[in-house]
């Protein structure tokens, strides 16, 4: 069964880029353009991983992550953001169950490698 990845970003170009890269590698990709849309779709879609942008207009990535985590302790989430965060914050997030923090821009290889690390097999 191919792994399903949900990509959440208000920037359509980014969403399309991620979709192109991952589908090329055999992943199934689900799109969401806002935090709310992500939360709406996540129960039905049940993705193996959620790639979450941070700077989004309605519901920020932080809040979306908080709600996702409250809903489902086990769901795998990785941020996908231009913002660089402090080591301290990153450690806290990793402890809370965040799988990774991938910075943009990224090359196709970088993205795939990081995702393979989160979703082995």
């Amino acid at each position: 069964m191919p792994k399903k990845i949900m990509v959440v970003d208000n920037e359509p170009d980014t969403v399309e880029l991620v979709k192109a890269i991952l589908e090329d590698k055999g992943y199934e990709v689900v799109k969401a353009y806002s935090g709310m849309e992500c939360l709406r779709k996540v129960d039905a879609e049940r993705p193996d991983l959620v790639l979450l942008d941070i700077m989004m207009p309605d519901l920020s990535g932080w809040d979306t992550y908080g709600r996702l985590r409250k809903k489902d302790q086990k769901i795998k989430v990785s941020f996908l953001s231009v913002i660089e965060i402090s080591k301290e914050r990153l450690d806290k997030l990793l402890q809370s169950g965040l799988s990774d923090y991938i910075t943009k821009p990224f090359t196709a290889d970088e993205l795939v490698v990081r995702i393979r690390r989160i979703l082995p097999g």
Partner: protein
Amino acid sequence: MKIGLKLIISFELLALLVIVVVGYALFAQASEAIEERTIAQLESVVVLKENRMNDFFKENAEDLTNIQEESSSLLINQESKKMNYPEDIRRVLNGKLGNNPDYIEFFVLDPDGNVYASTNEAQEGKIKSNEPYFTEGKNETFVQSFYYDSALQQPAITISTPLKDNEENVVGVLAGRLNLEKISEIMVGMSGLGETGETYLVNKFNFIVTESRFEKDMALKETIYTDGVKDCLEGNNGHGHYIGYRNSPVIGSYAWIPERDVCLLAEIDQDEAFAPINRLKDIMILFGIGTAAGVSVLGIFLSRKITNPINELIKGTEEVRKGDLSTRVNVRSGDEIEQLAIAFNQMTSDRKRSQEELKKTEEEKREELGQLVKERTQEIEEKTRALEGSRLATLNILEDVSEAKDKLGQSYSELKKLDSMKDDFVNIGAHELKTPLIPVIGYLSMVIKDPGLSEGNRKKLEIAFKAARREEKLVKDVLDISKLESGAMKFEMEDVNIQDLVDRSVQEMQSPAKERGIVLESKSLQALPKIRGDPQRLEQVITNLIGNAIKFTDKGSVTVEAKQDGSVVVVSVKDTGIGIPKEAIPKLFVKFYQVETTLSRNHEGTGLGLAICRKIIEAHNGRIWVESTLGQGSTFSFTLPIEKTEHLANG
């Protein structure tokens, strides 16, 4: 145990004791008395009967003697000195029977002892020579009593007297048989001995001689061996109580009558004799029961009288224990308990009084205290008023101070707002600057891999990709320097081991160094104290310096060294590169300044690296500088202050 029960038991025991003792004594006394009386009675009966019997015999003996005297001439032929014809004698004897009702037979015995003539003709001719009345009667008047006449088959008494002629010669024996019933009559006749009393005669052979009052046909047929008879037959007169011949206990009195060779006994059943006592015993028992009941009642009554007042007292103490000191116990028993109740009442009222007094004192004291407090409060208020004046003065100062604080607070919140605005600005800036690069770098990196791509196209795309990467770095640097300059950069200060950072940096930069064929190494001379700094940013500085060193060195080495110098740690990156012209040195750390030399144009610097390093180091209270000789190499160094305590520890 309750008092009532104690009383009842004590009384019952006492009563019982008394009854038993008294009863027993009475009983014993009465028994004795009755026995004595009975015996006396019996004895007198014995005497009476004896006399009567003796009288009977005496009389009848006399009568026979008289008959002999009177009739001898009729009975005896005086001339022949022989007895007349039997018919004649018979006639005479019969005549005598009429006059002597006690006799039932007269007869004459010849000198041989044969019955010569008898009023009972059938007896004539019988031999009676062995009979004592013949053998004795020949000599004198003889009473043979209480023998069993075998011929007649009945007990008999016979009196005999010698038949004499006028010359006193014994011609024969005149005898008369007595009516035994007469004796029995004497014996059995009422003598006031009650229902069970009787008298009877017993002969030497233990045969009862007279008829028993109670059992028929005993005379001279049954024997009696009671203690009384035994004792009597030994020749004793006496009395006692023993088992009678009817197997019932009797009291008896007896006398041995030697003339008749018989025992005369008078007996009465003990039951009858002691009947009165038994009645007494029954009365006593009833009395005892009655007393017990009465005592119980008395006991209950008495105990009530005692326990009721006591219970009153108990109730009273209960009330007091619960706290009600107005309780009074009402007891009018007129005894010690009443006194106790009075004392109790006294005690509680005393206690109540002292309690009230105590309360009163307490209240007084409280009032005093209140008064005292009021006075003191007044004093304090006066003093406070005095202070008010100075207070107002201070208040004004305080007001000013708080105003200043408010302003400070305001500026602080303004600053914070500014700060977050800066953060937002930086974030938004970063976002906007970086966002276009995302698809560029992303797609280019993908497409470059396309196997269907021509070599020429691939090369073009690679150039574009690298340019995009350079742009990405430039954006990063610009953002960094802008954050550093605006103060938006947040350092995460920790205790840092500089040597670790150096080693990590050196490790990371090994491959670019190898690509250019130069040696990159670190030298550590000594153990370095920890310094306070942001490890990420400091590593960034070291990496930047190493990167520059590698870029400007074609051959040789780059050496990184860290050491302590007094109160600072000095890190230096030394290369054997092309060096820096003197005039360029002051401008090195300035934004966007890039050293241009004819020799190297393909460096990919942004001109911001050193400026960023300077900002970072200066933010750490350090200093950064360079020493360089053109053509020989350059050494970039920076210092970081050591924590005071650490500094002291390491001298």
